[in-house]
């Protein structure tokens, strides 16, 4: 049977066909849909972990218990999961373990474009790289056999164009006859005390050397001879671009990008006149080929930054591009917080208070954009609180009062708790705002430990944020309604003044939550055109439901789109002329 699957759907299907028992992940674009699709296969225990490190540790436990386990994350998630990953490389596995990492060249939805292939080399684990959805499914399935045969965790690297690209996939039946999971003790292999780890490290080196030698025979790498004047070594979506742009060239398509199959590369290099590497981001393959003493052209002609496209490859090879029409000069269309978003009022207040906002990762990072323009830093998941602590340690008393960390519910639980622990322990007098909208919103509304439900849609214990902060030792904890501008501004101001650590929790759900009884749309608002003076005060919150309608000369009036308004009431509070009210 055929289906059109995204790479992520195909990876989920591959896990099902491979007999995976446990899947764990933290959502992150472009990897999120892997777990969202895996839940349709009822034999797999799938869950959201609070962060990628925990997700991998859950996977490791499942593997040690004898079950096959899949763990998924975006590229920056591997930074968080790196600690267990590097030692897992030494212990090896019992049931097969696959870590799927989705890179984001071009940073469509990310804060950097780190190349995860370096992690495979650094942690000394094999890495597969599929080039379309069919390979996503097949490689996922084969990864578990590889993992068990070579006693190693396996990484599978996707990129945005693979994860979110769709192509045709042939479905197969799941494998049968896998051994039933049970406790098997092998402490010398799994307890990584120095004495045991010293025994394991040489085995890791042998494993990687063997994988490199076996590279030609494994079903991942493919040598395709066409015109031998030009040979291109490539992998992933770049293979597709090369076939499109240089259809006559011979290719060595690498499905396993670490370790590289040295013999196959030598064989290919000997058969072609000029050798090229076409790869996105770092010169990962290129540098290793150069270290083998083989002349090859790569990043001299291809960019390191951003993703490759057929057009960029054409340009690099000096090929003519299609004639395109001139680019029109048009107003931009950046993303924006939704109408009624509970974050909007908080950032409006922070802007008014001229706060120095250490930001974090989530929808609320859009608070950086005008007209809210209330974010000064954003580094990585959970960084806001530590950043605020550091800033207040160095600036003077008056500036200290301006420092506010802003972090979402899911991001706080991901890696923010430790930052708050440090802020309290070391008595750093900054204010933390936890934006609790009861969901992991930016990645498309995933449940989390504070949402009350699991990935499998079962009711779950909800984290009590005030109680958690109290347990960490925070003495000043305030809960506010972020749709009440006056209350939000007053509480923020009071806590910013306070020379002690304090936490403000905003308590309003995301407007996109569909579960009944969480978010309810209020009666919509309208502008009374007779009372509207055209002062533009309501435009300062940047709500997509409010439109400036120009009139004669400089005059104009505000208009509220009733199809977009959620009735949050924030714009009404800004109108000094009582021109905004509920529709009759």
């Amino acid at each position: 049977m055929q289906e059109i699957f995204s790479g992520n759907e195909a990876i989920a299907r591959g896990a099902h066909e491979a007999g995976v028992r446990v899947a764990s992940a933290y959502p992150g674009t472009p990897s999120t849909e892997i777990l969202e699709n895996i839940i349709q296969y009822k034999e797999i225990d799938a869950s959201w972990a609070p962060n990628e490190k925990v997700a991998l540790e859950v996977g490791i436990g499942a593997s040690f218990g004898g079950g096959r386990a899949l763990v998924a994350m975006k590229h920056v998630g591997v930074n968080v999961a790196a600690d267990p990953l590097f030692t897992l490389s030494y212990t090896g596995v019992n049931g097969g373990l696959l870590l799927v990492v989705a890179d984001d060249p071009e940073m469509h939805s990310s804060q950097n474009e780190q190349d995860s292939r370096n992690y495979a080399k650094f942690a000394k684990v094999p890495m597969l790289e599929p080039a379309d959805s069919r390979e996503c499914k097949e490689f996922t399935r084969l990864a578990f056999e590889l993992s068990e045969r070579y006693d190693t965790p396996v990484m599978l690297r996707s990129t945005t164009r693979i994860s979110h690209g769709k192509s045709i996939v042939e479905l197969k039946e799941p494998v049968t006859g896998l051994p039933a999971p049970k406790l098997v003790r092998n402490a010398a292999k799994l307890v990584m005390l120095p004495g045991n780890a010293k025994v394991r490290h040489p085995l890791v080196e042998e494993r990687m050397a063997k994988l490199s030698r076996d590279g030609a025979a494994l079903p991942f790498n493919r040598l395709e001879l066409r015109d031998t004047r030009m040979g291109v070594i490539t992998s992933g979506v770049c293979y597709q671009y090369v076939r499109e742009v240089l259809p006559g060239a011979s290719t060595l398509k690498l499905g396993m990008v670490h370790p590289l199959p040295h013999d196959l590369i030598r064989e290919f290099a000997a058969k072609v006149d000029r050798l090229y590497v076409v790869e996105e981001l770092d010169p990962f393959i290129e540098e290793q080929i150069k270290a083998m003493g083989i002349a090859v052209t790569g990043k001299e002609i291809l960019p390191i930054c951003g993703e490759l496209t057929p057009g960029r490859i054409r340009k690099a090879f000096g090929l003519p591009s299609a004639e395109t029409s001139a680019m029109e000069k048009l107003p931009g269309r950046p993303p924006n917080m939704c109408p009624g978003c509970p974050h909007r009022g908080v950032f409006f207040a922070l802007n008014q208070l001229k706060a120095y906002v250490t930001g974090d990762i989530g929808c609320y990072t859009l608070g950086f954009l005008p007209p809210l323009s209330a974010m000064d830093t954003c580094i990585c998941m959970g960084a806001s609180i530590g950043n605020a602590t550091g800033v207040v340690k160095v600036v003077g008393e008056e500036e200290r009062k301006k420092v506010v960390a802003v972090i979402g519910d899911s991001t706080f639980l991901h890696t923010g708790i430790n930052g708050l622990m440090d802020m309290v322990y070391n008595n750093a007098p900054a204010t933390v705002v936890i934006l609790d909208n009861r969901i992991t919103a930016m990645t498309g509304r995933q449940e989390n430990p504070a949402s009350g439900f699991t990935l499998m849609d079962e009711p779950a214990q909800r984290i009590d944020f005030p109680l958690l902060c109290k347990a960490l030792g925070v003495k000043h904890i305030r809960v506010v309604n972020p749709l009440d501008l006056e209350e939000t501004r007053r509480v923020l101001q009071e806590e910013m003044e306070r020379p002690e650590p304090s936490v403000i929790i905003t308590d309003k759900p995301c407007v996109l939550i569909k579960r009944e009884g969480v978010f309810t749309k209020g009666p919509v608002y309208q502008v009374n055109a007779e009372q509207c003076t055209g002062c533009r005060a309501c435009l300062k919150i940047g709500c997509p439901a409010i439109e400036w309608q120009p009139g004669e000369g400089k005059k104009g009036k505000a208009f509220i789109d009733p199809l977009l308004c959620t009735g949050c009431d924030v714009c009404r509070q800004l109108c000094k002329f009582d021109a905004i009210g509920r529709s009759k």
Partner: protein
Amino acid sequence: MSDQITNILLVGVGGQGILLASEILSETFMLAGFDVKKSEIHGMSQRGGSVVSHVRYGREVFSPIVPEGEGDILFGFELMETCRALPLLKKGGKVVANDLRIPPPSVLMGQETYPDGLADRIRSQFPDLLLVDGQHLAMEAGNPRVANTVLLGAVSKRIDIAETYWLSALEKLVPKKALEVNRKAFMLGRDL
């Protein structure tokens, strides 16, 4: 079957239903026996930002994204976004555009104005433009929310694939209770 690849671009604003429309296109091409690839960006760009989806079909498709300047058909859900995507289209490419203006943030805030005469600007470069009043025709079909399906019907007329595959794809991907109104909307667009 020739080696010719047909390149379709769907553009608009996040939240307009572009992904579903591109799924229906892809499904149709698969049912008709072609190789299909499609690509788009999820995540941050979906919060009301510009969205571009690429769909390609033919005997064998390699790249999931349409090379710059090689689009055969531009399927625009919003006028300004249609205009923005013109450099992706090949000379003589076809355009089917919804006659709809969604103001971006700078226009909402009164800092910029929504450009005038976009349809004429498109037509001057790409004479094969069909401007569709999707909202109006959707009302005629019985539901203002099926404007995309009207447009899809109009696009289908410009692609050489038998009607039956389009209708099967609709049946597979549209929720049962909304199927009838979508079928009606599709035929309205197809008859334009």
